[in-house]
């Protein structure tokens, strides 16, 4: 892959930060099983403990509140599938790893911007005396729309419910604070903030229950069995520390959006009526299928996506845009552009130029003429 390629799909995965890479290589060479009591094992244990402090600091948690997992998906499954709450309420725009983790989960609707409808949530909570587990994400993976988590937590706690927040797309980009948000569980993923894939964490507020989903060696204080991915965890720690100040890409994102709207008549950016995270733009190019756009952009040396990476192989409508009431014909033309820690102005300029070229080509093609007719 040439270095000249512009990568703007950080919500799928971010490249590894150099500092995290260095830390991981060192640990990969050192080896050791953290459960072993000999020196090699104790050194691996110290590596895991140091990373635990770094990850805890990222979200204002205590090190003991950090449970390392194999990623965000496992963290979401761990809290939802393992919850003893008999009622689970999730928002309509959650990631599949939340939506599908619990059969029979109730759905809290969202408004046209994709923001969870708080009065609907309140009614759902009041509908039964059974204490629920509520799961609402921090920032949406497709649109970047931020949810009113503190409000959700306040409503839920008022009726004795527990609150989980999937902060996979938020942590390291915006300030995510366990206690500031007032949630009980937080899911994190390393590879969305410049760590490695294959590692994540579930933050479990002290005193809040958690049922492990797998049995075994008693690692992670009996909350998650299996030999720790020591190198991945070390890289996660370093990446978390590097990402602690958040992402500074809002000016680039704004410049990008202004330019795209100037280029394409009828283009629409989704979720602009609500607060959004600084790195994500979900935009439609009228009449041009998302697949066509991403292929054309790839040929022009720019990587973006047509939706969530995990499901982008399947041809299906975005459940997020559908929940927001976007007509299917328009949803099919939406692409996701997501910026990250190594995004520069030149990347944005390249995307804008490629998008403009595509739009001009299409406008002069049959599709464009048909639309004009």
């Amino acid at each position, binding site marked *: 892959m040439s270095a000249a390629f512009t990568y703007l799909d950080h919500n799928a995965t971010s490249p590894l930060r150099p500092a995290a890479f260095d830390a991981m290589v060192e640990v990969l060479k050192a080896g050791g099983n953290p459960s072993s009591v000999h020196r090699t094992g104790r050194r691996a244990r110290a590596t895991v403990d140091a990373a635990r402090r770094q990850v805890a600091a990222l979200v204002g948690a205590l090190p003991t509140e950090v449970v390392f997992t194999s990623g965000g998906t496992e963290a979401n499954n761990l809290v939802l599938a393992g919850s003893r709450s008999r009622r689970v309420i999730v928002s309509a725009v959650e990631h599949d790893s939340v939506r599908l983790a619990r059969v029979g989960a109730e759905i809290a609707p969202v408004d046209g911007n994709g923001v969870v409808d708080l009065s609907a949530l309140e009614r759902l909570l009041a509908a039964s005396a059974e204490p629920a587990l509520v799961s609402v994400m921090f920032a949406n993976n497709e649109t970047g729309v931020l949810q009113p988590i503190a409000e959700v937590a306040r409503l839920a706690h008022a009726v004795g419910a527990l609150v989980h927040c999937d902060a996979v797309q938020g942590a390291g980009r915006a300030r995510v604070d366990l206690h500031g948000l007032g949630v009980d569980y937080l899911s994190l993923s390393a590879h969305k903030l410049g760590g490695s894939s294959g590692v994540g964490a579930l933050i479990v507020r002290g005193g809040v229950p958690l049922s492990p989903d797998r049995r075994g060696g008693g690692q992670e204080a009996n909350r998650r069995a299996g030999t720790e991915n020591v190198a*991945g965890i070390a890289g996660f720690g370093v990446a978390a520390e590097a990402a602690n100040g958040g992402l500074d890409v809002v000016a680039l994102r704004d410049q990008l959006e202004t330019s795209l709207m100037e280029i394409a008549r009828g283009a629409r950016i989704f979720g602009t009526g609500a607060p959004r995270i600084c790195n994500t733009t979900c935009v439609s190019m009228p009449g041009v299928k998302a697949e066509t756009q991403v292929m054309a*952009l790839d040929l022009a040396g720019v990587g973006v996506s047509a939706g969530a990476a995990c499901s982008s192989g399947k041809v299906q409508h975005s459940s997020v845009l559908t929940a927001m009431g976007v007509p299917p014909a328009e949803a099919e033309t939406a692409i996701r552009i997501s910026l990250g820690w190594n995004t520069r102005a030149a990347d944005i300029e390249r995307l804008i130029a490629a998008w403009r070229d595509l739009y001009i080509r299409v406008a002069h093609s049959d599709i464009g003429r048909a639309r004009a007719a």
Partner: protein
Amino acid sequence: MTAIAQIRRNDQPIYLDYQATTPLDPRVLEAMMPYFTYKFGNPGSRSHSYGWEAEEGVEKARGQVAKLIGADEKEVIFTSGATESNNLAIKGVAEFYKDRRNHIVTTVTEHKCVLDTCRHLEQQGFDVTYLPVQKNGLVDLEQLRAAVTDKTVLVSIMAVNNEIGVIQPLAEIGAICREKGAFFHTDAAQAAGKIALDVEAMKIDLMSISGHKIYGPKGIGALYVRRRPRVRLVAMIVGGGQERGFRSGTLPTPLCVGLGEAAEICSSEMVAEAERLTRLRDRMLKGLNAKLPEIYVNGDLDRRIPGNLNISFAHVEGESLMMGIKNLSVSSGSACTSASLEPSYVLRALGVEEEMAHTSLRIGLGRFTTEHEVDSAVDELAHHVTKLRAMSPLWEMSQEGIDIKSIEWAAH
């Protein structure tokens, strides 16, 4: 075996705990490097070349893992490790078929994650038979045959024990399971890459593999799931639908690639490496026997992987010995349970008396173990065992021919 310079620095202890974890083979690290750096894409991304490139890496690795065990690549699912594979295999099968069959057969010497999963299923209403093992650590095939009924959905028996290294008769177990219509799952975390495994010849339906036990990275493993006849599972982790729905979550490309490369190296070097390790192990045992009386090998010595010894040093407390041998990284049993001071349940299952179980060490040899390290380890062990025995009244009494069991201890 390719000549590889000793990877241990001289100020580091001699690593003899290859059943707890293995060092990463430098060739594996090299294969992983591009995927940590410029090939960083998400293999689930279909819309740009970063994604395709990552997917290519993952699929090549899947083929490499499949080849190691004689499987088809479509039958290999990547997981976060053998603990997850074991949980998924046992729980997944049990839950899927629970309306038809609700009985599971396993052995008392399985890894803790298998035993704990079975206990958890018992609480859910499944019946579980925990077969004993013989004195040599091997399962009695007639007992197995008698235990498997028409209600048995799964037989889960490890390929190689993590503490004593004994190899179970997999092909015979597979034949019994097939004949009785039960699925055969084997935890091959300690076996893959060390002994020849063939899922067809051995009639294995599910197999768990770990990356970091075969010189690959931690945080990755695999589960083999047979397609013909098809084995079905309830997934434990759902979401994006990766791994054909069996296991959701972004595939960690560098780790998958590392596991694949590790499997590939094992495939090509296993035979030569086994010969070399057998020589080293024999050398170690011979050396220890020459210097120390009353040491006993636990578990069958012939039907055993080459890289394992489990030895009881009579009248020496294992923990004190471990404190003494500071230059050796060995363990007194399974790493997962090594922080606890209870005697090994595996040794107890072999009928090893509690006093002897307390004096045992697990010594694991592997790809980077050198002859020189073996000799140093023998010297260090002999020195400390002799020293501890010299201070032990029990040793003195036993040397004088007093049967320690006959002693009535005064109350205090």
